[in-house]
């Protein structure tokens, strides 16, 4: 039996391996295969080569969705790199009752996205709380169309995403802030550096790897945004579908009994490649900057 010892680790691995192959690898490979077919949800399909990818290039819905997802990354990712850091610096201080604020900032992270989406939709509705208060105070005469204007809707969704993400990334920054060597601060202080100078010259360089991590994580999740836009803008993706994101488009095209699985798989493959590209670009940028 000693010759079979190599099998032992595989046996330990087996449960996880089955799960990974069954729920990750298999669906992934299957999606790639389907992307080259005209498969429907029922009734199968046949190989159509690159047709789906050609169709995608001429599909205005794809370009709208890709544009919205990209815009989401451009606005949300920087906000989620900077704002949680400021928040972490704020709640790091040892003040009475600070634990309450730390918990309060983290609450949106654990709240259900559906509940959060519904609450925000009630707040931002034309007859919702925000418009109601502003109108009652005489600030506005006509309500602001937060949820029915193409740009205000996507901005509102971004606001919700940032609000939800603040606490999560704040915790990551808090952990990183704890590992910034105290001696560096003391040395800088001896050299006459003020609080702001120490933030720029000590804290931020020490936090650089964490900031890159937060940038990557927030950019990838912003690129794949679905729930916030879906809940605020409805299943059609806002007025005229103008706020549809890539994941929403995949859902719209590929689900239901008459779902176009081939095309939605092609969209998924493109989303995957774009996300991968985003990751590679961010890590390259980080490496180049570190080298310089």
């Amino acid at each position: 039996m000693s010759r079979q010892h190599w099998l032992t680790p595989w046996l330990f691995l087996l449960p996880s391996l089955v799960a990974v192959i069954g729920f990750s690898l298999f669906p992934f490979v299957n999606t790639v295969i389907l992307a080259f077919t005209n498969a429907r949800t029922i009734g199968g399909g046949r190989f159509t080569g690159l047709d789906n990818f050609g169709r995608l290039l001429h599909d205005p819905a794809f370009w709208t969705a890709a544009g919205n997802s990209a815009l989401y990354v451009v606005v949300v990712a920087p906000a989620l790199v900077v704002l949680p850091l400021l928040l972490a610096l704020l709640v790091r201080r040892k003040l009475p009752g600070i634990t309450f604020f730390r918990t309060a900032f983290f609450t949106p992270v654990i709240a259900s996205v559906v509940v959060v989406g519904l609450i925000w939709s009630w707040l931002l509705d034309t007859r919702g709380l925000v418009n109601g208060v502003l109108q009652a105070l005489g600030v506005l005469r006509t309500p602001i169309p937060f949820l029915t204007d193409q740009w205000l809707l996507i901005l509102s969704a971004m606001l919700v995403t940032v609000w939800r993400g603040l606490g999560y990334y704040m915790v990551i920054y808090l952990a990183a802030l704890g590992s910034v060597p105290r001696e560096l601060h003391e040395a800088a202080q001896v050299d006459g550096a003020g609080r702001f100078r120490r933030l720029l010259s000590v804290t931020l360089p020490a936090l650089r790897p964490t900031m890159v991590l937060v940038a990557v994580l927030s950019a990838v999740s912003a690129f794949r945004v679905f729930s916030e836009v879906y809940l605020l803008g409805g299943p059609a993706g806002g007025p005229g579908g103008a706020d549809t994101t890539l994941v929403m488009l995949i859902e719209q095209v590929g689900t239901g009994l008459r779902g176009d699985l081939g095309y939605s798989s092609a969209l998924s493959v493109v989303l995957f490649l774009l996300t991968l590209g985003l990751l590679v670009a961010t890590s390259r940028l980080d490496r180049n900057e570190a080298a310089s």
Partner: protein
Amino acid sequence: MNSLSRRGFLVGLACATALAATGCGLSGGDPGAAGGPVTGEVKGSITFQTWALKPKYTDYLNGLVTRFQQAHPGTTVNWVDQPADGYLKKVTADAAAGALPDVVNMPPDLSYPLAKQKLLVDIGSAMPDAAKDYLDNAWSAYALPGQSGSYGFPWYLNTGPVFYNKALFTQAGLDAEHPPTTYAELESAALAMAQHSDRKIAMLGLTPVIADFALYGVNVMDPGGTRFTFNEDKGVRFVELYKKLYDAGALIPEALTANYTGAGTKFMNQQIAWAPGSAYDLSNFKTNAPSLYPNVGITKPITNTGHATMFVQGLSVPESSKNKPTALAFARFVTNAENQLAFAKLVNIFPSTKGTMDDPYFSKSDGTDEAKVRVAAAKQLGTAVNYTPVQWSDQMLTVLQQQLAEAMLGKKSAKQALDEVVAQCDKLLAG
């Protein structure tokens, strides 16, 4: 064990993975056998799937199962109920895997793509004597347009009145006792309400769905059901009417993104004054919007065709069923006149079997609001039509909603928007 080499193990694992991955990519449903009467002994076990009937109607459904099993010794019916949310996804997944239960609750638009792929039993040829038991308009709801056959036993029907908010009508200076009965009256009432309330109260909460076009008198499809035609002049006029109401503030801005549930909530919140509904909604208002309930007025739906729209639910038997004789017998049993009448008395729905609606329960009101709605709806059902074409899909609804929003916002003319919807829907229909 000694013969099992490391390389062999890994190669085997890789091959198994690759086979599994490639094998499933293009799997299709198994097209069924040719039609013809289904004969055979009613025996053995079947699975019966309903849509969100548990736990409210558990006793009724269990009673049906028990009586069927007693009438047919040797049969076992396993009743499973799926929650309302995600029902379509569940049916889709089961259909794609060829694992649909023996008897499945589905509305016509869900049965259509399955029937088209020959995944459902043609009831018309499997049980040629069944058609005569059901109302013609209900039976034909499960037919494939342009082809013979019918793919579901109609189970229950629903149609509804329009609910309106009397208090909001009065506030806007409108006669709450005489709600609009024509589109022209609705238009002028809606405009008056928006103007009087300084755009704070809207009459309508939803852009039109496909059945609304049909109620307006628009020809939604060509007679053969092969292409959509609602971009005709009348359809354009209908969208222009909505555009006028939107500009005046008589259609809430959220209508551009809302779905049906969203509009229902707006009515319950007393933010809109007019909402088509069903007899079921009345009890919903009573429970969930008690302050609205005393203000709810009930009136007939507005139609240019003389017919109201109705909704149909039915039971279909998949071709993949291993026990078709029992499945068909059970589906027919559940949908027979006696059982439908008993079900209709439990919940605000209407039977689809011939003659059942003659029961005094549907023609005599005891004075309660529920009874009034029931009697009015039952009268309406006699000539009601299922105005949502079975070919209509969720993707088409999304396209319609998106293009109507563009028209309302003035980014496109009504004609341009409808031409675009029809072009995209025709493409989806052909695909």
